């Protein structure tokens, strides 16, 4: 009985008082649990690399040597020493510029074509087999034709990006349009939403998650293709930088460049994914 009587009295005080905050250490623990494992494994990886490549017969430099020879590339990404001898950041920008241009063109053309194929049965039947064959052509196989047509390195590289990134964008957009749920079509029919308005207000938002999946695959492929294309066409760009380093036997520089390439690819993927999240807010959740 005592317990039953005292509890209701204590309750109002407890309810109005703020809940005790967890201690600083306890609050940081979840973050630590996420950050520690990758940090630890990266450290282990470097140690193993150091151990494996430190011997006299090793073909590849250990991390300590990479740092000793190429720390300038890491510390000063934007130097220009005349000609093509410039910082990695500048090479990276040249590559990103090409990717951006090629990718934006691919996005515009790819979404437009995908919407067409998705809506028109005739276009679907006519174009789909062609696309299915063309999309399996490896990006670099387009380069010779592209060079022959454009006669210049930069537009050729941009074309290769374009033609690499466009297929997943077309195909995913078309699938998205075809998969607009019958429920949404019924709703539109009842409120007599037709023609362009139906397209803008139902089809496009319903297909948006698919379109962004296509864009995300596209940017990944574009980044893969640019590195390879630049190795062949020369000039500026991170791909050219790697090829040039190989030709001058600067193996340490290649390691640093690969690190940059990886991080940039990761960031590009995240940017497109974040844009997708922003644009399709809510659509995926139900």
């Amino acid at each position, binding site marked *: 009985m005592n317990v039953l009587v005292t509890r209701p009295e204590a309750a109002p005080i407890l309810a109005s008082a703020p809940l005790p905050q967890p201690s600083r250490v306890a609050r940081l623990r979840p973050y630590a649990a996420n950050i520690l494992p990758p940090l630890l494994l990266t450290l282990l990886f470097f140690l193993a690399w150091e151990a494996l490549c430190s011997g006299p017969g090793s073909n590849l430099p250990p991390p300590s040597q990479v740092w000793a020879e190429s720390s300038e590339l890491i510390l000063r990404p934007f130097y220009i020493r005349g000609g093509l001898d410039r910082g990695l950041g500048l090479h990276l920008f040249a590559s990103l510029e090409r990717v951006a241009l090629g990718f934006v063109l691919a996005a515009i053309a790819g979404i437009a074509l995908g919407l067409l194929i998705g809506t028109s049965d005739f276009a679907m039947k006519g174009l789909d087999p062609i696309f299915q064959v063309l999309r399996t052509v490896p990006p670099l196989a387009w380069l010779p034709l592209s060079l022959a047509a454009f006669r210049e390195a930069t537009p050729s590289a941009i074309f290769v990006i374009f033609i690499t990134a466009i297929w997943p964008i077309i195909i995913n957009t078309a699938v998205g349009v075809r998969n607009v749920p019958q429920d949404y079509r*019924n709703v539109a029919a009842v409120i007599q939403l037709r023609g362009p308005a139906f397209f803008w207000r139902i089809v496009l938002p319903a297909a948006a998650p698919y379109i962004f999946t296509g864009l995300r695959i596209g940017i990944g492929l574009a980044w893969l293709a640019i590195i390879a294309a630049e190795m062949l066409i020369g000039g500026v760009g991170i791909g050219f930088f790697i090829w040039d380093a190989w030709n001058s036997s600067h193996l340490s520089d290649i390691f640093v460049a690969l690190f940059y390439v990886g991080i940039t690819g990761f960031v590009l993927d995240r940017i497109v994914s974040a844009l997708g999240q922003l644009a399709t807010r809510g659509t995926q959740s139900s």
Partner: protein
Amino acid sequence: MTAHAYLEISNLSIQFPKSPVPVLRDVTLRIDKGQYVSVIGHSGCGKSTLLNVVAGLLPATAGGVLLEGQEVNTPGPDRAVVFQNHSLLPWLTVTENVLMAVELTVGRKMSKAERLAWTLETLALVKMTHAKDKRPGEISGGMKQRVGIARALAMRPKVLLLDEPFGALDALTRAHLQDEVMRIHADLGCTVIMITHDVEEAVLLSDQIVMLTNGPNARVGEVLEVGLPRPRSRIALGADPRFLAAREAVLTFLHDRHAAPTLTAA
């Protein structure tokens, strides 16, 4: 018989293109203005199909539907549908979902402010004002169904078509929404066709209960007039002999004379 009823379904048969037998055969119904009609039958007998034809979403294979003497063959806002799975557009907020319907139907000639006011009024009718700026992904199943009902009501339809509107809800939420729909039906006086497989729900809400036989070739097996006075209270009716008799009549039809084919086979 020459005078048409308000809503008339006459000798309606529906056969899907690749199926050897019709789902529904010779369904005939006459529904008066302001009536609340439930259609009940076992799963898969063609209830949704029937509703979709009245909505104009499916063509009739033979026979047809007349609303106020006009043949129904396209979908339209005079026959608003509340779909089985709410079908709200997930990228729009609650308000926007209803507003879109208002804009294209009753609100064509209204100003922007009038449309919004109309929308908010309808949301208040189903008690959803508090969540008006949420997206469908952020509200419960019962709330989504309320918004679906609001979207349909906002068009001021002549006939409100409900396809198992409470099917996916828990018992408490369902009872609550049933009361709301009864109140709205009394307030607005619209004609309602509701698909259900819940016997008590049918008896509680309806003026008429249409019982379909098992498909394929489903037809109207029986029509029960529920003479219970309105307003009805579920608690008072629980012991009312007329309520119990109506319930028993429907149960007998469904379980003795037209038991689910899968259950009898087992």
